């Protein structure tokens, strides 16, 4: 009645044996570890190494310059660096707050049931699907100094008398970048918040209504607390995105005028590929990374695991 018993596996390396089963884990993760080591860890280490050398254009395999902290010295004493820090801080705050505000509002709006809700939801998050470069094309024209729509609108609405020189005015340029980034950035917040809102069990609201809570109270005591984890993670991710962004700023204003839109990320790039000083560029870049890490750890604290 019994089945013919399979001959015992000839393979010496039979991963199905209980004593060997756990080995598969290591085997499967090996390619990732190797790839990551090769294209992320090693370059990162190289970058850190570069930052400690006084080098313009390094040659891989060439003799490395002596260890020197002159890049960092230059960095901390350079007004350009501090300006970049300031610009980054301003931009991060403005764009993050803006994205979260718009994102959360649109999510709350679309969370209601109404005809055409799916279309509305798709439409509201559409900017996410527009490539950053294209967003820049759109907004660069809308912000055009001579014929841009926004300038004309500002005059019509009485904010100003003449066309705003978006690209030659520091303040104007900053706001141009900020607005473009908010338009690109809020859909992500919206999508995540909507998912978070929809995962709040309806029972909670039912219980609250029975307890006599009004709309605002339900929002404050049920929606917000339960949404906090998602909101927190999204906030940090948006923040990191602003820190890192290159496409929008570089193509819209190039970092100008007069470095009024030069974030740390742009400065890192320009030091390397405009001023051809890889050592300094690496220093700025490494420092930016460190700031990012500290900022997110501070913001998430013990809950840093929630990003992964």
């Amino acid at each position, binding site marked *: 009645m019994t089945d013919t018993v*399979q001959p015992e596996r000839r393979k010496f390396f039979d*991963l*199905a044996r209980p004593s060997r*089963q756990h080995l*598969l*884990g290591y085997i*499967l*993760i090996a*390619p*990732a*570890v190797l*790839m*990551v080591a090769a294209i*992320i860890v090693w*370059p990162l280490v*190289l*970058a850190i190494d*570069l930052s400690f050398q006084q080098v313009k254009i390094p*040659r891989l*395999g060439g003799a490395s310059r002596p260890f020197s902290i002159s890049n960092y010295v230059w960095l901390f004493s350079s007004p350009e660096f501090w300006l970049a820090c300031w610009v980054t801080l301003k931009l991060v705050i403005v764009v993050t707050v803006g994205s979260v505000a718009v994102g959360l509002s*649109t999510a709350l*709006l*679309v969370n209601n049931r*109404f005809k055409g809700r799916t279309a*509305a939801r*798709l*439409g509201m998050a*559409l*900017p996410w*699907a*527009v*490539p*950053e*470069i294209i967003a820049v*094309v*759109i907004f660069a*024209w*809308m912000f055009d100094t*001579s*014929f841009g*729509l926004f300038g004309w609108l500002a005059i*019509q609405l009485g904010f100003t008398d003449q066309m705003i020189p978006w690209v030659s005015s520091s303040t104007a340029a900053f706001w141009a970048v900020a607005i473009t980034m908010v*338009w690109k950035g809020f859909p992500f917040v919206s999508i*995540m918040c909507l*998912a978070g809102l929809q995962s709040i069990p309806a029972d909670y609201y039912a219980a609250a209504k029975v307890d006599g809570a009004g709309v605002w109270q339900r929002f404050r005591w049920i929606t917000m607390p339960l949404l906090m984890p998602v909101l927190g*993670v999204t906030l940090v991710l948006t923040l*990191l995105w602003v820190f*890192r962004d*290159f496409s929008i700023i*570089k193509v819209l204003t190039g970092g100008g005028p007069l470095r009024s839109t030069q974030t740390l990320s742009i400065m890192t*790039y320009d030091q*390397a590929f405009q001023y051809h000083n*890889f050592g300094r560029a*690496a220093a700025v*870049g490494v420092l*930016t*990374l460190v700031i990012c*890490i500290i900022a997110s750890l501070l913001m998430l604290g013990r809950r*840093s695991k929630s990003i*992964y």
Partner: protein
Amino acid sequence: MRRTFAQSLALYATVAFTLIMILFPVYWLLVTALSTTDELYRLPPTFWPNDPQWDIFARVWAAKPILMWLWNSMLAAVGSVALSMLVSVSAGYALSRYSMRGGATMGMFVLTAKMLPATLLVIPLFSIFSSFGLIGSLWTLVLAHSTMIIPFATWMLKGYFDTIPKELEQAAMVDGCSPIGAMIRVVLPIATPGLAATALYAFVLSWADYAYARTFLVNSPDNWTANLGITTMQGEYVTYWNDISAASVFIALPIIAIYLFLERYLVGGLTAGAEK
């Protein structure tokens, strides 16, 4: 919950207003593309061109190598997504099923990789690729985009695999599969939606890159990706906004199409990984 007529009206009005505000720039892109240059250089701007130049699309398509740009973006995307998925699916599965020493370090690494600015990594990568003579080749993008995709995909896939019960592999092993057999015959077929979502999102990530493309390919016009190509239409002194807008429509269309038709997958993947 029944709404009063006033409440409904308010809701629909708000929704409509918000949609208009948000989608207006996209609409404006189309308007700009269809306008004649004269019309563009005039105030007040017209909200729909008096004489829509529908043939601008054909003209721009002929004048600029848009197809080639799109093709290059596609090559880079397919290459980097394929490479990354191979690596990430295995790693995500391993992280989901096996507790390993260094599981926490993996987590830290994923976190750091999300913060790593392209503008930092591009510097050493440039050195490395220069020494290997790869500058100007699309292979630089395959590797560079993978640096963005692998950490994110591994994390997303791990979250997805976590939702598949381990008993399925156990049953498969009792039925006679090896552990790898169980993964391939049982888990992967079930995980296909998650794999698709991750691959899709990775595709969008790759398509969106500009920093790496600009740095590595700027001197090889034949290998320009879509994003890079568009920026070259921005003139030093004068930009033909209708031309560049028309070209932009071509470039934006693929991703917008993916978004509209496959949004379910994209968003599902994003949010499933996030809310754990």
